[in-house]
């Protein structure tokens, strides 16, 4: 069996808040004991509401923040960013796409420069090659070559998210962490971006960690699902298992709260409503 792209053992992250010179303050356990494993070419979805620790976990997985304790392995290699920092090779393996495509692009940077920047920082590639690579990537994510010299404000939300995905892919990463990549987008644009992610996954054998609170998107895109609640991993398993037979009460609450758009449940609601009025 091949080595999983991403593996963690008992990741914990605590935050100390309100500490002053004289008082100890409080400890917030943002992530408690997260153990997970993602194989190559698969998608793990992390589901949870605000405050569940899913974004904190994402920051740990993308080597932005260190865990308080626990082990993080990327392609079988142990990473400890406090002791050894992040090497350029490691940075190339893991990339991230953020939720807000309006906030995650520099408004003063042209798209071509946005795409070339990861190469400038992490490789010794000459400028001409960088430009070629950026042009190719632009085409891959469904944008045109004439977009190369434009600024972020000239693009719609969906196009900006394409740019953010393109930037993340410039270094040929094996792992892409996507933090709510479609929740700021309209339904039709969401469908385009989800399709793009599926195409890219097929083409480059990408591994995704997909963070979302939208269960219908998760059900569509994920292979495995992990549900977090108040920092705790309350449920973990294959998509089929979790959706067919949720074990934890929070997962059940979450499913019950998700709006249903099928004809049968609309009929049921209208019948209930008619009964209430009568």
């Amino acid at each position, binding site marked *: 069996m091949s080595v999983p792209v991403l593996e963690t053992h008992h990741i914990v992250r605590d935050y100390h808040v309100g500490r002053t010179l004289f008082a100890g303050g409080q400890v917030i356990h943002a992530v408690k004991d997260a153990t997970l494993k993602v194989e190559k070419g698969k998608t793990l979805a992390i589901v949870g*509401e*605000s405050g569940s620790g899913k974004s904190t976990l994402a920051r740990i997985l993308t080597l932005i923040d260190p865990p308080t304790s626990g082990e993080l392995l990327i392609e079988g290699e142990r990473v400890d960013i406090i002791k050894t920092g992040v090497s350029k090779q490691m940075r190339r393996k893991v990339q991230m796409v953020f939720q807000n495509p309006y906030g995650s692009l520099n408004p003063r940077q042209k798209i071509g420069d946005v795409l070339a920047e990861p190469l400038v920082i992490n490789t010794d590639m000459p400028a001409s090659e960088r430009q070629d690579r950026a042009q190719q990537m632009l085409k891959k994510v469904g944008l045109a070559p004439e977009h190369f010299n*434009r600024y972020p404000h*000239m*693009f*719609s*939300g*969906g*196009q900006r998210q394409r740019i953010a995905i393109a930037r993340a892919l410039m270094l040929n990463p094996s792992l892409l962490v996507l933090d709510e990549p479609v929740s700021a987008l*309209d*339904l*039709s*644009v*969401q*469908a*385009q971006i*989800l*399709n793009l992610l*599926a195409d890219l996954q097929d083409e480059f054998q990408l591994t995704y960690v997909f963070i979302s*609170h*939208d*269960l*219908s*998107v998760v*059900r*569509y*895109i994920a292979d495995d699902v992990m549900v977090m609640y108040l920092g705790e991993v309350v449920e973990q398993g294959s998509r089929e298992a979790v959706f067919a037979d949720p074990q934890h009460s929070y997962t059940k*609450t*979450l499913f*019950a*709260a*998700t*709006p*249903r*758009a*099928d*004809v049968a*449940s*609309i*009929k049921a*609601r*209208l019948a209930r*409503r008619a009964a*209430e*009025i009568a």
Partner: protein
Amino acid sequence: MPLLDIRNLTVSFDTSIGLFKAVEGIDLSVDAREVLAIVGESGSGKSVEMLAVMGLLPPSATVTADKLEFDGKDLLHMPPHEKRHIIGRDIAMIFQEPVASLNPCFTIGFQIEEVLRFHLGMDRKQRRARAIELLHQVGISDAEQRLHAFPHQMSGGQCQRVMIAMAIACKPKLLIADEPTTALDVTIQKQILDLLVGLQAQHGMALIMITHNIGVVAETADRVIVQYRGHKMEESDVLTLFEAPTSPYTRALLSALPDNATGDRLPTIGDFSAEPAI
């Protein structure tokens, strides 16, 4: 006679590149005790037309209509000082960002009581009693203490409840909810939707639900208007819309729902490209 009756509403904005029509020739009517959902993606004009009803558009907007009547009164040609006694009392509105729509400098008790003082002329004691009653109605348990809380001390869901309390304070005939749950978690969304629909039935209000979320439509509406780029695409009762949509745009929108995915790619709205012309 419908409660709100709009014929041929057009809203245009004066921009540096000429006149931009955000809403063009919309007919719309709501009966008393009815839940109408207006669905559309960003740029469909769904919020703009309701802001036009409320008179909350900036001076750069021009509103024209053959008819804009609420409860038999012509809102379009009504002088502002008369309109002020209808807006906030007979028509109330709640907005997308609950935390941003409350004034951070005043306690929520003060803000609820301000509505009661202005529209109903209650004295201090009556106002206090009514504010507590309202907070209980919207499901805030420790109302007496909460009156002294500032918006930043409450969660997003709690703030939205306060907004709803303010909106229903004068027992409005029409409540307009502009994306009331977009900023909230699914579990909180469920609670807020249940609350809104419950209050609607209990008070016999008309409710206009502006949303881009098909699930929210399925869970709340009696009748639905689908809009795209300022034009009405379809109007039908909720069951017909989901069972047999007539407009191609609605069909495309419904098929872009990940819930309805059949293959391994989502259908996208090709004929109705959402990318703006650059």
